[in-house]
């Protein structure tokens, strides 16, 4: 009997991933590996680090809507030094899959300083520049919506590293294609999208917002069509690989994103819904490709309209 061997590895700009399934920053940590083998993960993306420790936003920080999740965590993290000294050695020790460090700066120079510090450490395979967190005022998002700043940021950082340089884009923009192109022109080696969408929920009895901050980031199943459309548009605009995310829960969801032009997908909210979401999505893609006797590359970006 002929055995079909699916080719489920995928390529980013500089990294080859053994699985096209990764995770969205802040939704997956080493604790998740109590439930699943890391072999299913193409890469491990850590929670976003900032230069100095960040307490995060006041609670309540979460609210589950009819279709997806609102959050306003506010990039709570221990800061760059503590990450490098305490967290990085543990990650290096534990991970066999590539490590992508997600980080965010409040200025071009701070991004540069952070990258220079991280460059001095072994065991990091790539970076994800978070310029799109909707929960941090005057940081992040201001960067992500301006193509000129996105270009400058990528152009500033690209010459400083030989590692994968991913920039994570915001959906809260007028034209994702322009921003994606600016990232590519600046020297990003791949693009991840989308970060969360602005969202809100209000208690009808009291009139109080469900999140302490009022507006938060909306993720999960409800944002999938939007994420898919932006993936499609961005993929048409650039040649660099795209890591797509936004409401992907199942392998069927993931396949839509590959057809739309994603080279890899990331699960976010799905990790909270099902601790086995990553292996299930991986297995589903693998089975699909085996049954059709084709490779992932034969699907990526081949959506017909």
């Amino acid at each position, binding site marked *: 009997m002929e055995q079909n061997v699916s080719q489920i590895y995928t390529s980013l700009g500089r990294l080859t991933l053994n699985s096209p399934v990764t995770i969205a920053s*802040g939704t997956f940590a080493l*604790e998740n590996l109590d439930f699943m083998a890391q072999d299913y993960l193409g890469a491990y993306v850590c*929670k976003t680090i900032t230069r100095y420790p960040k307490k995060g936003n006041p609670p309540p920080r979460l609210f589950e809507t009819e279709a997806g999740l609102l*959050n306003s965590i506010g990039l709570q993290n221990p800061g760059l030094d503590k990450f490098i000294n305490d967290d990085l050695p543990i990650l290096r020790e534990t991970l066999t899959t590539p490590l992508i460090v997600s980080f965010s700066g409040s200025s071009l120079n701070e991004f540069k300083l952070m990258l220079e510090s991280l460059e001095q450490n072994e065991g990091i395979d790539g970076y994800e520049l978070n310029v799109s967190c909707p929960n941090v005022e005057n940081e992040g998002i201001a960067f992500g919506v301006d193509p000129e700043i996105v270009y400058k940021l990528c152009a500033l950082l690209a010459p400083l590293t030989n590692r994968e340089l991913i920039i994570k884009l915001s959906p809260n923009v007028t034209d994702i294609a322009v921003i994606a192109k600016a990232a590519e022109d600046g020297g990003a080696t791949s693009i991840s999208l989308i970060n969360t969408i602005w969202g809100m929920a209000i208690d009808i009895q009291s009139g109080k917002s469900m999140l302490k901050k009022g507006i938060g980031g909306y993720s999960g199943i409800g944002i999938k069509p939007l994420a898919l459309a932006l993936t499609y548009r961005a993929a048409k605009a650039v040649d660099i690989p795209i890591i797509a995310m936004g409401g992907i829960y199942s392998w069927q969801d993931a396949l839509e994103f590959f057809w739309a032009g994603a080279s890899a997908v990331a699960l976010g909210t799905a990790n909270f819904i099902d601790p086995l979401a990553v292996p299930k999505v991986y297995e589903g893609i693998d089975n699909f490709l085996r049954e059709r006797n084709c490779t992932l590359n034969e699907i990526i970006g081949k959506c017909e309209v």
Partner: protein
Amino acid sequence: MDKLKPQFLERAIYSREELCGDYFILWIWDEELGKKCQPGQFFEIRAHYSIENAEETRSLPKLFKPISIYDNAEGRIGFFIKKVGYGTNALSKLKAGDLLELIGPLGNGFPIVSGKKILLVSGGIGYPPLWYLQKRLIKHNLIYWVHGGSNQCDVFPCDEVWTEDGSLGKMGMVTEGVRSLIMEKKINLIYSCGPIPMLKECARIALELEIEHYCSLEAYMACGIGVCYGCAVPIGNTEDWNYLRVCKEGPVFNAKEVLWNRM
């Protein structure tokens, strides 16, 4: 002892108990799991369904709900639940034989002591974790348990009952009697679980009388395992504090370390 890792399990519901109002209890039976549980710990639980079948069942995938352990008699584990939203509503429809998805046990339990005069203070759905706790404490401590609710459907077996509408027991807020009980019963340790204003008032009294006080906090959670930081609460002192996770560093905290004014 190393902290035991939580497990992701599916277990059939062994039996179900109806209580007054919106309250009900789901029981599962797993002896091995029972050995890992401590009073104050919780599970993330959910009515079984699968993402793959979401299309067929027309049901959108939803988060697990954090539910504390109500009872654990050699693996006969009870979840005492109040119907409040989508998740608990789905749980309320389950019957014996239906599958429950569980992640746990999670979080840190209450400190277990001996030779103390203990006051338990609970409000509404804060009752269940203290039931499991008192079972563990009762042989080696003197315990007095006071519980309050808005009406007679919100009260459960204990030593002293308060209702806001006066429909059962004393009328008023449960915290009204706490100060005199501490004096009268020479209380030297308090455990509490319930709504934030109740915990805050208990904490104020305990601090003033210099009584040790542990409270179990409730928070909205996405993951329950320490990943998302959605359930964070302010812990420390006014000069030096941080948001700690109810699911990982909690749900039990020393009440004097909780920054109640920031809650």
